[in-house]
């Protein structure tokens, strides 16, 4: 990224609206977007942005730094507030419907589909970015387009992968991490048989980790909550097959996973009580950046792999997706569009992604080349997250029902009930169907 001196700053501000044509700093941004006059900020524009609270400090610092850069270039003041990611959703819903609040809200999952008519069409921004950076991954369109129009700009997702121990793989005779569900089960069984740290996946009401792996499990065998007409079809032979597989997998788990919330697997893995789990990159970074030599050695031994592929024959991951929504009530739509485009440009996005240590996987294909992914090969599986994931509420349309179904832990509860033996798979699937129908009926 180019360096800014005081002189540059003076030039920029003096140039005001013409700043773009001066080509300050020689960034592609000024040549492409502003020069075309695409989104010349409104006079006196000020923006308020609400986003989910960082998982790592570097993310927030860099995001704010990039925001300041935007202010310097355009003179548009931007205030960024952040809230825990689970709290952004209700706030965004209220803002959408009351018709006032932050201009831009960076929320989670299918929020854009909950109030598409309250959002500004950002097709121009997305086409511009997509055209310039190798296109968007398919799942972006599921999350952010409505009737052929983009209603939110994808920011990326918090990717998940299977975190495991390389040396343990070797000890039980695996050269590499198994690519399919059958091999995965064998691995987990072998670890248990050999007395090595076992597998552990959250089965409590863990908003992040629980939903992520339970959706993967059911989808991997072809089960799904709804079909493409939003009929609830969870009670299917495919789901039952997934739950039967889950029962066998659960036998290889460390005790207590039914109580696990989001942080439990991180703690247990770092304490070497488990050796296989699904998580973001956080476990690895905690170990790598620790001041404890034992932890650093653990980091050396950590491997990451994308989730195994089930009988459906293709990846079926669920990851925490982040849409950036621009609301109709915003008085400064051009300024906001300029901001969104600016933050997604390579000069800003890649350093920000680096600062976020790989917690955020990119939605634009060109960022596969971000050195972040290759500088440490262990980061690589997380670069695939947007490529290998399915949208929430698959295979139906997204909206209120899919969001509520996830928030009510219907999938997680079904898997937990069935694999722990509290209910038979059939009973668990029937109950899940009954619960989901309530939401999809409306």
């Amino acid at each position: 990224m180019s360096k800014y001196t005081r002189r540059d700053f003076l030039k920029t501000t003096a140039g005001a609206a013409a700043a773009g044509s001066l080509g300050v700093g020689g960034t592609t941004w000024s040549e492409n977007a502003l020069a075309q006059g695409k989104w010349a900020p409104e006079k006196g524009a000020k923006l308020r942005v609400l986003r989910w609270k960082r998982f790592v400090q570097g993310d927030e610092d860099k995001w704010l730094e990039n925001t300041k850069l935007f202010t310097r270039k355009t003179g548009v003041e931007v205030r960024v507030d952040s809230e825990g990611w689970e709290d952004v959703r209700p706030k965004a819903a209220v803002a959408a419907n009351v018709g006032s609040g932050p201009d831009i809200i960076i929320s989670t999952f299918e929020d854009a589909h909950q109030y598409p008519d309250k959002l500004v069409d950002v097709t121009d921004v997305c086409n511009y970015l997509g055209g310039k950076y190798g296109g968007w991954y398919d799942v972006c369109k599921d999350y952010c387009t409505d009737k052929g129009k983009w209603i939110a700009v994808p920011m990326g997702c918090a990717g998940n992968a299977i975190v495991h121990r390389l040396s343990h793989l070797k000890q039980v005779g695996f050269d590499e991490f198994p690519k399919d569900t059958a091999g995965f089960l064998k691995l987990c069984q072998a670890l248990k048989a050999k007395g090595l740290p076992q597998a552990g996946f959250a089965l409590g009401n863990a908003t992040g980790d629980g939903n992520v792996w339970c959706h993967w499990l059911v989808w991997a065998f072809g089960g799904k909550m709804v079909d493409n007409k939003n009929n609830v079809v969870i009670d299917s032979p495919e789901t039952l097959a997934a739950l039967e597989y889950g029962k066998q997998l659960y036998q290889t788990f460390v005790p207590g996973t039914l109580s696990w919330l989001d942080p439990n697997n991180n703690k247990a893995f770092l304490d070497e009580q488990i050796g296989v789990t699904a998580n973001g990159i956080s476990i690895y970074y905690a170990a790598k950046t620790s001041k404890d030599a034992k932890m650093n050695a653990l980091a050396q031994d950590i491997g990451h792999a994308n989730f195994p592929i089930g009988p459906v024959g293709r990846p079926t991951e669920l990851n925490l997706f982040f849409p950036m929504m621009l609301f109709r009530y915003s008085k400064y739509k051009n300024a906001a569009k300029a901001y969104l485009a600016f933050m997604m440009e390579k000069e800003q996005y890649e350093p920000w992604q680096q600062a976020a240590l790989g917690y955020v996987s990119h939605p634009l294909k060109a960022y596969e080349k971000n050195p972040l992914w290759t500088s440490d090969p262990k980061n690589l599986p997380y670069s695939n997250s947007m490529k290998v994931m399915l949208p929430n509420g698959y295979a139906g349309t997204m909206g209120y029902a899919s969001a509520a179904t996830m928030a009510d832990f219907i999938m997680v509860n079904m898997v937990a009930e069935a694999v722990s033996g509290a209910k038979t798979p059939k009973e668990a699937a029937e109950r899940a169907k009954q619960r989901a129908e309530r939401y999809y009926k409306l």
Partner: protein
Amino acid sequence: MTKLLNNRHFLGLLFMLPAAALLLVFLTYPLALGTWLGFTDAKIGRAGQWIGLANFRYLAGDSVAQLSLFNTLFYTVVASVLKFALGLWLALLLNRNLPFKSFFRAVVLLPFIVPTALSAIAFWWIYDAQFSVVSWALVKMGLIHRYIDFLGDPWNARLSTIAANIWRGVPFVAICLLAGLQTISPSLYEAAALDGATPWQRFRFVTLPLLTPIIAVVMTFSVLFTFTDFQLIYVLTRGGPLNATHLMATLSFQRAIPGGSLGEGAALATSMIPFLLAAILFSYFGLQRRKWQQGGRD
């Protein structure tokens, strides 16, 4: 005007206005709004249509809601009874002439002073499936061979959350009852002793009847707090495992805010009111009866 201002009744009304306004704005209005929402299909941020009893009808047949009702009643009854027993015991102990009396009295209050969210996090570690200090100690002592699954088994989880709630609630009961004990005139005990009453008789016929009004108030509050508990569950289990610790309050939140079904969540919260009213009425018309307080029966 001056005439009006000199009118006692008018002045009285005037002075009550600020308090009434506060109550209306911050108490009556939210309660009424919540109740009303329960009869609509409101989603977060979207005004709902009146749908009558549909939410309640659905909840009555919803297995998770039924489970949460059972959990709530079980949680409230067991925790309240134990809190009362332990609280009373503690109060009686503290009422004796102990050395460092004030110090002990202050210390006893600690669990109540610590913010719930904070003590809940401490309990979360105590109950952790992998890091529980209790399990660790028992394993080291050779008493058990594997860690106790405090929060991973439905019944263990219910009992564990109740234990945490009791730990937190006992000081409140104990200190209030202690205040009640101190109002009892020592002369009554002297008189009883002169009449040859045993310690149990002194407790049964002097202490208990005179303490009943305080017990009524304290236990009403205690039941209300327990019934509506939220923070402890939310930190410890979020209602898991298998929804075994979902209370009506936590389920109502889960459905209303993250789930967006404001109407249904409100209906669930409103469903708590009859139970709470019953608890209050019981204390009013039952425990406050003169006859009962004087040790008699109906």
